[in-house]
């Protein structure tokens, strides 16, 4: 995954299953949020957890009861559902199991079709051995044994044309082993990195900052460096009544240094003709509109 090694904000939820009303959509319980730095193992485990999480609500739609009816559609569903491709049909259980095992992640046995089959069979065998087959069927139909129902669900398939009901989750498969592109960078900042070798400059490099904005580079009410209008003495146009066509009207020195600092970090310059001094807006606007156009 392209975001391996990056810090991400993770939110973990748990679905509460109402055994008295198993077809009711499970209630989402917020557990925690945390900033994690991902490595490859994290990503594989998250992918498996994500698949398991997405499959949970499908059980609540009466998967066990519908399994026979949808059995004939298994092949078409498996053929049409591809990972993260935006196809509308949910995947077959076989595909989910295969995806999980291909990532090599541990702790995903419950999500694999084979282990689910063993668990269900074992439970059913105990019923059979005690002569309670009828009771097993009744309990199964009534949605008891929530965990087992989920496992059984992994043996189910869903027709490719299944459309989620309004308000219900949509099945999406994330295959951590498949790289489809690079996440667009969101690592821009707007603070002066300082001269090359300074702490901020070094940290920007370490953080992978790739774009730095000039406006407010020293903050609102700061030196004004990078701004064309600010209260500080570092801004580029100190006298709003000066002739904007004359070189002598400009104070480029501090911003020259800022631009050099940005380039030394290896980042792109985002040059914003910005203002921090909101008290001089009228004069400033008149000055800018009189600037030379060539």
């Amino acid at each position: 995954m392209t975001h391996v090694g990056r810090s991400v904000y993770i939110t973990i939820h748990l679905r509460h299953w109402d055994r008295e009303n198993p077809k009711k959509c499970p209630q989402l319980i917020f557990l925690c949020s945390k900033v994690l730095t991902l490595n490859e193992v994290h990503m594989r485990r998250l992918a498996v957890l994500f698949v398991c999480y997405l499959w949970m609500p499908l059980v609540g739609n009466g998967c066990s009861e519908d399994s026979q009816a949808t059995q004939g559609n298994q092949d078409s569903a498996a053929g049409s559902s591809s990972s993260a491709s935006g196809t509308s049909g949910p995947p077959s259980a076989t595909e989910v199991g295969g995806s999980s095992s291909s990532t090599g992640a541990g702790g995903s046995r419950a999500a694999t079709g084979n282990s689910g089959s063993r668990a269900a069979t074992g439970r059913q065998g105990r019923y059979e051995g005690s002569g309670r087959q009828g009771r097993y069927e009744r309990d199964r139909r009534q949605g008891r044994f929530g965990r087992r129902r989920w496992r059984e669900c992994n043996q189910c398939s869903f027709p490719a044309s299944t459309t989620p009901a309004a308000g219900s989750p949509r099945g999406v498969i994330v295959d951590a082993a498949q790289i489809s592109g690079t996440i667009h960078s969101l690592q821009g900042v707007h603070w002066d990195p300082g001269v090359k070798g300074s702490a901020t400059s070094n940290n920007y490099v370490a953080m992978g900052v790739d774009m730095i904005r000039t406006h407010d580079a020293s903050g609102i009410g700061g030196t004004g460096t990078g701004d064309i209008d600010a209260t500080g003495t570092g801004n580029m146009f100190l006298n709003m009544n000066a002739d904007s066509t004359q070189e002598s009207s400009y104070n480029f020195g501090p911003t020259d240094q800022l631009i050099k600092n940005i380039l030394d970090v290896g980042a792109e310059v985002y040059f914003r003709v910005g203002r921090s001094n909101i008290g001089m807006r009228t004069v400033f606007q008149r000055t800018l509109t009189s600037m030379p156009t060539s």
Partner: protein
Amino acid sequence: MHYNKGWANGFTYGIKYFEIWNEPDFSPFWAGTGEQYHELYGKNRPRHPGG
């Protein structure tokens, strides 16, 4: 002009990203009308003295 064209003893950095004005839809930073902002943008888009 100063940073890309060398105007006023400047540079030829080839800076690609320029933005004219900050928050022109927010009155503390722009007291004019939308038409005035477009006029400002048009005057400075080809060559801003800093660019």
